[in-house]
């Protein structure tokens, strides 16, 4: 075993949480991520494996929550799979095995930062951040959009007041700052 320690996207040894009366913003450092893109001509086979993995193939703009893996649609014939990092550090390798020959799998764990926004003010905060129609979004809708010039995924989670924001890791600080100012503005 190696002895290299990770740091979180915000640079801490532990993920950061900020609490406001109306919303809590938590850095979620626990996700392993990998993308899966169907090979041309192998879409059906890829879908079958995806179905086995998640219980359903995420449709465009949708997420599917499974145990332990969840996934959301990224683009035509392309999905992002997430799983707990603790148990799935080697998620990409696992998926490569599962999707051998029918999909291209790319490790994505390092590329992203994840924030969970939970609280009664989630919709108000979201309205100050990005153009998603948050009040009309159904549970498990997943959209890629722009927050402070950053391409981010926003996923409306099962909790009515829970939004997951997945953004580019190198700009975790900028994204966090945008979330914090929106939270202060709407507090």
């Amino acid at each position, binding site marked *: *075993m*190696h*002895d*290299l*320690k*990770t*740091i*979180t*996207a915000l*640079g801490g040894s532990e993920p950061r949480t900020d609490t406001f009366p109306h919303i809590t913003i938590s850095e979620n450092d626990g996700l392993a991520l990998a*993308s899966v*893109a*169907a*090979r*041309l*001509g192998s879409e059906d086979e890829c879908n079958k494996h995806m179905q086995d993995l998640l219980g359903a193939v995420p449709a465009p703009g949708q997420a599917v929550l499974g145990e332990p893996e969840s996934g959301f649609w990224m683009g035509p014939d*392309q999905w992002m799979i997430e799983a707990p990092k603790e148990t799935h550090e*080697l998620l990409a*390798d696992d998926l490569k095995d599962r999707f051998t020959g029918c999909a*291209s799998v*790319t*490790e*994505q*764990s*390092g*590329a*992203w930062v994840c924030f969970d926004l939970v609280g009664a003010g989630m919709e108000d905060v979201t*309205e*100050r951040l*990005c*153009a*998603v*129609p948050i*009040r*009309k979004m159904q549970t498990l809708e997943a959209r890629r959009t722009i927050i*402070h*010039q*950053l391409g981010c995924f926003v996923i409306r989670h099962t909790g009515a007041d829970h939004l997951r924001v997945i953004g*580019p*890791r*190198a*700009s*975790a*600080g*900028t*994204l966090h*700052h*945008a979330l914090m*100012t*929106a939270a*202060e*503005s709407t*507090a």
Partner: protein
Amino acid sequence: MTQKNRIATGGQIDRSTTHSFTFDGKSYQGHPGDTLASALLANGVRLMGRSFKYHRPRGPLTAGSEEPNALVELRDGARQEPNTRATTTELYDGLFAKSQNRLGSLKFDLLSINDRLSNFLTAGFYYKTFMWPAAFWEKLYEPIIRHAAGLGSLSLKDDPDVYDKGFLHCDLLIIGGGPAGLAAALTAGRAGCDVILADEDFRMGGRLNSETFSLGDDSGADWAAGIIAELETLPNVRVMSRTTVIGAFDHGIYGAVERVSDHVHTPDAGKPRQILWRIYTKRTVLAAGATERPIAFENNDRPGIMLASALRTYANRFSVTADKRVAIFTNNDDGHRTAADLHAKGIKIAAVVDVRPDAPKTYDYEVLEGQVVDTRGRLGLSFVELKLANGSTRMLECGALGVSGGWNPNVNLTCHQRGRPVWNEAIAAFVPGEHLPAGMTVAGAAAGDMSTAGALRSGAQAAKLAIDLTGDIPDLPQAEDAPVNVKPFWYVEGCSRAWLDQQNDVTVKDVKLSHQEGFRSVEHLKRYTTLGMATDQGKTSNMGGLAIMAELAGKTIPEVGTTIFRPPYTPTAIGVFGGRHRGQDFHPKRLTPSHLWAEEQGAVFVEVGNWLRAQWFPRAGETTWRESVDREVLATRGSVGVCDVTTLGKVDVQGTDAAEFLNKIYCNGFAKLDVGKTRYGLMLREDGIAKDDGTAARLAEDHFVVTTTTANALPVYRHMEFVRQCLFPDMDVQLISTTEAWAQYAVAGPNSRKVLEKIVDQDISNEAFPFMACANITVCGGLRARLFRISFSGELAYEIAVPTAYGDALIRKIMEAGAEYDITPYGTEALGVMRIEKGHAAGNELNGTTTAQNLGMGRMVSKKKDSIGSILSEREGLNRDDDLRQIGIKPVDPAASVPAGAHLMSLTGPVDAAHDQGYVTSACYSPNLGHSIALGFLKNGSERMGERMRLVSPLTKVETEVEIVSAHFIDPEGGRLRA
């Protein structure tokens, strides 16, 4: 301090609370619910500003956002806000305002001399003079004009407030909270539709707040308040007061500005001053109401002369009269309402002057048929001079005159796309025409439906139509339904100094002159006279100008043209469009995985696009950046250095056609690259010019990792997707960007292998892992990683990558492992020096105009395959004999510098553009060679090695003799790479 013009009772102000405020240093009092203008009028202050050109004394003309005159500098210090309309400024306790555009005091403005000179300062006078002598325009005339011009002043301190942006979605956007808008909101809101109701005022209700007539059993204001209360209980309705819809953009996108904190002294901590909302809506009901228009007559601009409807608003809503004696001048029935309302409040009506013979009569006050032909009063109205229908003249004493020339529907937003208003004879005004913004319906007075009952009806119907409501519209209250009774009347005959545009001082005389000189189209009129170009955007002035031009041209008004409106509806703070994108937050920051560690080392950072990269790592005792950089370069070439190269773009390319795909995007071949090998690739644009370069590492038969330059990561990815999806849609290839997924470090120098051997779990000997090898490996006993034996520095070098979260740990591990070799972190400067020493092209060379030939890589462009750019790269202009070629440059005098951006000239002969031979792209001091070196492009450069030339930079006043040499200053054979 008394509010001498405050009416004893009534109004929508809170008399239980008193706000103190100051205007031009003097203290006054008002109440919540007042505007600055209403509070000043209550205190007997009519004079609030000076006009733009003639510095005429001015008071408010209106009670709303169309105000041309009563502009003030609101607040002080860094929050000073010029040109703020007193008529829409909500009074708060401690409000501070000053008058503006004056030299001296507001009462004794020295620049009012301009008024005396007005005969010289007519429309367009400046185009005809100030030309002699030629130099005097900029030295003398222009500075004088500039200082006299302008209105209010900026503080020139950074705006201390913050602004938000936000995004809202709805099924129906209703613009305007007057009777039409409220009826529409009620209809759609009760039907369960997602509605946003926006109104610019701080109190919803529109004209209902300004009128005395009832809706059913309630006063208009009470009815409006009741409806608002109901709407606010509906979860599907968002009621937004203090929110101006500023523009109608394509496909149902509206811009709206909510003034969150403008009605308080200072925004609460963390709270924005204003929010720019981008509203996405399927349908829109425009219920923006109408604006009264004035009539032009001699000296019609004195403080106290106001729109009749404004006088009514001040009296009914704010419980204020501009003076105790008021006269009315009207061409329509609506003007009489003002007289009736004011009379009912005990204000003396001096007379109502109506141009129509059939004006409604009353016993309450005198109604005269005639016209106002002139006025008196130095800083405020004191008399009006009448010419009556019977031919007699009369002086009428009054301190306020209400003028009503009819009403113009507020069609502004209907024009923001292609809509052009059309003339409606019945109300003598423009109403919305065809080509409205998609999904927009217009209701109420904005559509020309001028009565209250009509507004309610059309508002409800518009909403019903917009949401396809099948059921009934809500019951609407009984309301006045008077027809519009107006006789078009624009100006009093014979008048000359009669103001059309009060702010810009455009008079009837100017319009006549414009016509006389041939500036007859609406656009010419506007531009020549500046009519309608002031901060009120001509809301009260355009129609008058148009009508006079029509009369002069012997045409009807619609024949002359229409005035169209552009966003924003009212002037909007630049700050709110900027939102949070200010200062350090202007653009996002991208931090490298070693950023924290580099900060600990005291690194100096530099912006590379949005990335912050370590530029160099100063050490104690180093006094200049050059010392640090020289040390880093020497240490790397002497032993080993490490540099974060994560910022280079990385694209994962997988699929059975991955190699064939790379063959398309690179001009050189990739099909035969072995697994476990990396190759340099040059990417051309389709026009044959170099687009980007990088490496492609083949990790498996069907898997490559492609790198791009830092700057081009996104455009190259976009281009690759274009090639994949649009040009070769049946290739089995999948792309995804992985730039940020991996922390990647260059470890370079003769001892780099020794350092990495301590970290990498596999054999990386020269035999096992030769130059240009690549592999998936593990480090430190099992962490997955990637290793590439590639070199930008020209040394034995590797790039090693681990998942980003481990990047911080890895750099520390590398430093630890390298300690025995004095491993030295180096930044972008040292990286740059080493690549120039090695002759590698970078951004300065790949500048979007250079070909493979220019770069000395012409032979790389394979003619045996189809690749992007190969055909157009063969054009004659890109293959001339005297083409630029990349070369190296060194100074003849080793102490001389060779500045980038300098041009190459022959040793003798003229120094000018015609004799330009080339230029320096990149330059640095080479600590290895002990002198400056540079890369550049030189005509036919590859044939000119050893030639002496002059390097000239007249801009920086440098001229140096240089020698043209190979671009490969260090290790030209590449032995170090393969060591």
